[in-house]
């Protein structure tokens, strides 16, 4: 809500002061939009002139949605595919364990984010306009942090880690997201000159490599020092080389490993205490290796944030840490610095295993909740999410549903992305109802879109929407006049709506009474069972058939049909005169075609409804009926 209020303040400047004198009104529109308009207290006499002169403006105000920019639309669409795969797999995973599939999909999400970052980078480098460039750069910041958090989440909750020992993954995460002095190291190693310590970043690079756990690189760099052959360097190198590394498949248990590792570190500590190390930087390296808190505190200034240190901290203090036990490491590292950015908060919460807090924090990222919705959904399906409310009730699925709902509703607002939004909404029970309401209110310009909306609605079983969309199209055709009766009837039949067809049929009959030719003959003559939806429509169809028979001079059949239309009494009041007068030419044919019995029936109907004809016409008809009766009373019209 706060975002919207900000918007009003900006936009109000566009409203001339005059508007405020009249008072101001505001109404909600579809989705997250509303309209501000000047509300006049007195009724204005609007003439054409004054209408043109008025300063009144109507302002449509909507939330700015980052995801609707072209580059991010790719992300929305691609992620939708992955989201639907997650749903499909979670269906099957009720019976089988699909951890590997989930991991694959999580990686897919990450690669989608990566593609998005790359196209943002490309766009930012091409963009010349300063403001637009900044926008791209700010999107980049958002997606860099999303990528970073998703990766850590994947390691902590989705990935399959043998023995749960998280260290190698954690180091990989640190190296990937916070590359630092990597190029310097590469340069130094490439030039391979002894005496590299003259490079201004030499020691910084060595220390970063130690902290990031790149032992091989650090050792190679140390070899380039001019004093590499001295005892103290050899000592450090030896210690680095002999460090035990844990591997699940290494054949030793964690307990055994812990003992040997502690033993190794004790050795390091004794070397440190023996004061052999003269070089202060080398001493710092050794102190880091011994996991000394003060050493880490000392190097923390070299890093932009504390989570660069997490990998090193775990590596040099407790490499056997399991993935659920990273909270302490997080707390220790966070204590080194005082920066408290949002990303720091989220990583901290993640290490603590407080997913509720994580989700709360990532909802603050201004990506319109793309990340929150997808990550929550992923974790939920992996079975790693368990969130309790203040009454200790399990609200995990409610949280996930509400995030998905919000994200889906947001997409429904967009002209093109509505179908993506629909696939999110229809994944939750409440969403289906919401989708129904939103689909019904969607502006539809063409029949092609109407058909597509109906097809999508049908896919999710929203038959009510199919009906209302068709009925809507039918009404639109109906209001277009008599020539469009065909369209109205066709869409009315699609809606299977009796009342809709009845309205269209009445309109057609009335138009015919007013002297227009019968519309939609091609439709009515081929409609078949669709006519049975409504009585009036049936009458119209049969009446149309009567015209066809009459035109093709099949008077016998035409007469029979007309008589049955008259005697069945389904015609509306206004149509009786037309129906009765249509008998006139058939009564006057050379060969009689209406039998005496039928003539009696028509006579009866005429007398019952004589009011619908003028006296002159009624008399004319009476005369014709009498003459026909005279002709047929002796030799009746035989059956064919």
């Amino acid at each position, binding site marked *: 809500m706060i975002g919207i209020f900000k918007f009003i303040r900006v936009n109000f400047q566009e409203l001339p002061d005059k508007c405020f004198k009249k008072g101001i009104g505001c109404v909600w529109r579809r989705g997250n939009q509303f309209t501000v308009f000047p509300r006049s207290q007195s009724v204005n006499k609007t003439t054409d002139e004054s209408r043109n002169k008025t300063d009144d403006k109507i302002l449509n105000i909507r939330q700015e949605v980052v995801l609707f920019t*072209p*580059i991010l*639309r*790719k992300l929305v*669409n*691609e992620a*939708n*595919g992955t989201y*639907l795969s997650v749903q499909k797999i979670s269906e099957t995973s009720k019976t089988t364990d699909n951890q590997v599939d989930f991991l694959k999909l999580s990686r897919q999400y990450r690669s989608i984010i990566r593609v998005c970052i790359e196209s943002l980078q490309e766009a930012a480098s091409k963009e010349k306009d300063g403001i637009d460039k900044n926008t791209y750069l700010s999107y980049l910041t958002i997606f860099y942090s999303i990528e970073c958090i998703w990766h850590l989440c994947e390691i902590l909750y989705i990935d399959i880690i043998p023995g749960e020992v998280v260290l190698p993954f954690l180091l990989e995460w640190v190296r990937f997201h916070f590359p630092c002095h990597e190029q310097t190291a590469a340069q130094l190693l490439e030039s391979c000159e002894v005496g590299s310590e003259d490079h201004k970043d030499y020691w910084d690079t060595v220390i970063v490599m130690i902290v990031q756990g790149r032992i091989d690189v650090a050792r190679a760099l140390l070899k380039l020092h001019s004093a590499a052959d001295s005892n103290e360097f050899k000592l450090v190198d030896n210690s680095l080389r002999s460090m035990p590394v844990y591997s699940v498949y290494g054949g030793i248990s964690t307990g055994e490993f812990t003992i040997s590792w502690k033993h190794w570190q004790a050795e390091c500590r004794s070397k440190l205490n023996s004061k052999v190390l003269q070089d202060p930087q080398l001493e710092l390296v050794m102190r880091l290796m011994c996991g000394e808190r003060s050493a880490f505190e000392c190097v923390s200034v070299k890093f932009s944030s504390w989570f660069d240190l997490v990998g090193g901290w775990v590596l040099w203090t407790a490499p056997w840490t399991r993935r659920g036990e990273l909270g302490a490491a997080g707390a220790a590292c966070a204590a080194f610095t005082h920066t408290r950015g949002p990303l720091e908060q989220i990583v901290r919460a993640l290490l603590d295993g407080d997913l509720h807090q994580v989700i709360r924090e990532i909802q603050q990222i201004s990506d319109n909740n793309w990340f929150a919705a997808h990550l929550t959904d992923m974790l939920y399906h992996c079975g790693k999410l368990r969130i309790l409310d203040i009454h200790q009730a399990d609200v995990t699925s409610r949280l996930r549903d509400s995030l998905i709902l919000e994200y889906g509703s947001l997409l429904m607002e967009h*002209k*093109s992305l509505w*179908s*993506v939004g629909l*696939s999110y909404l229809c994944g939750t029970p409440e969403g289906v109802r919401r989708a129904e309401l939103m689909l019904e209110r969607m502006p539809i*310009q*063409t*029949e*092609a*879109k109407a*058909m*597509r909306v109906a*097809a999508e609605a049908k*896919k999710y079983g929203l038959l009510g929407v199919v009906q209302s969309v068709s009925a809507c199209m039918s009404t639109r055709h109906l209001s*277009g006049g008599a*020539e*469009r*009766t*065909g*369209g109205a*009837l*066709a*869409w009315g*039949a*699609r809606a299977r709506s009796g009342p809709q067809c009845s309205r269209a049929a009445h309109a057609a009959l009335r138009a015919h009474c007013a002297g227009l030719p019968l*519309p*939609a*003959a*091609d*439709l009515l003559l*081929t*409609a*078949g069972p*669709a006519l049975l939806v409504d009585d009036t429509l049936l009458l119209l169809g049969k009446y149309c058939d009567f015209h066809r028979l009459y035109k093709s001079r099949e008077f016998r059949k035409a007469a029979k049909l007309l008589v049955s239309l008259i005697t069945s009494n389904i015609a509306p009041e206004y149509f009786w005169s037309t129906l009765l007068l249509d008998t006139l030419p058939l009564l006057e044919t050379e060969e009689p075609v209406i039998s005496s019995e039928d003539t009696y029936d028509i006579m009866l109907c005429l007398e019952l409804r004589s009011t619908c004809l003028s006296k002159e016409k009624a008399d004319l008809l009476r005369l014709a009926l009498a003459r026909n009766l005279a002709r047929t009373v002796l030799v009746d019209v035989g059956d064919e």
Partner: protein
Amino acid sequence: MPLDVQGTFVSQKINKVRWIPEDYMETKHFFTGSWDDDENCIKVWGFETANEDEDVEYPRQLSEYKVDGDVTEMKFTNKNVIAVSISNGDVKMLEISAYDKEAPLKEVYTWNNLHNYGVEKCSCTSLDTLEGDIASIGEDGNVNILNGRRGDISQTIKGADSCSLHSVCFIKLNEVITGNVRGHMKIWDIRSSSNKPSAAFLLAGDELAATCIIHHPTQPHIVLAGSESGALALWDLRMNQFPTSLLNAHGGGVTEMQFHPENPNKLLTTSVSGEIWEWNMDMLTKKMSDDYMPVDDKTNMNVNSLMPTLHKAINTLHCDRGRTLCGADNEAIYLIKNLRY
């Protein structure tokens, strides 16, 4: 070689995609037409390699032409000129330069509001071209025959249908077949002055729209229509009235069909249910001449899926030798390579 599918997201729902033909070499350029977006456009794309050492080619946008409405159909009238129907009732002929594909498209002729309900706008739903002539149809139920060489309307069949028309196809120079929202098909003789179809028949009994019509490239009396229900109907026009075959095919409406230009026995179809299939039509078209196809032969018909089913509609396809392009509602275009034909 196995089929190779490569998708590119383009941030617009693609309703039509067409390769731009090239003499003596494999074309690298194509048109796309978008629909259902705030602002729709026709774009020209070219396949380019990002790095020289890479084999994969990615489409890059070369030019853009904005239109006021959905692009409903695009067909070539000659090698460089494409006729486009737009949902605001316009028909345009656009020319692409043969030498500089990045140059903006040039308007050759424009018929504004060709289809309309009086003052109200009405969608021009489709068109077909034959030797420079264009037959356009609209929701108003009219058929317009346009002369693409002179740029005038040579004939209008007013009220050709009381409902909206959704598909059209030239059978001969003087005959077009149209299909409406109810699946009612009518054949029109353009030379006759009366507004009466020379033949009319129904696609199926289900009152659903005929979404696309094509004829067989070598046997023009064989006409195929795709239905909104996903069914495929086949007529021998020498004995129309009832389709010779009605195949329940796709799970959703058929959106486009194309016979492979190099092999008339291969048919490709796309659908609203997100499928793209290739059909082996040997059996069907061979049997056409003498009698109905026996039921057990129908089951022998070869149908392959070219791509895993998408979760959104595939709206269009166009193939050029072994490469097929298709455009979908998930705002992506897919290039399928190594299609055997």
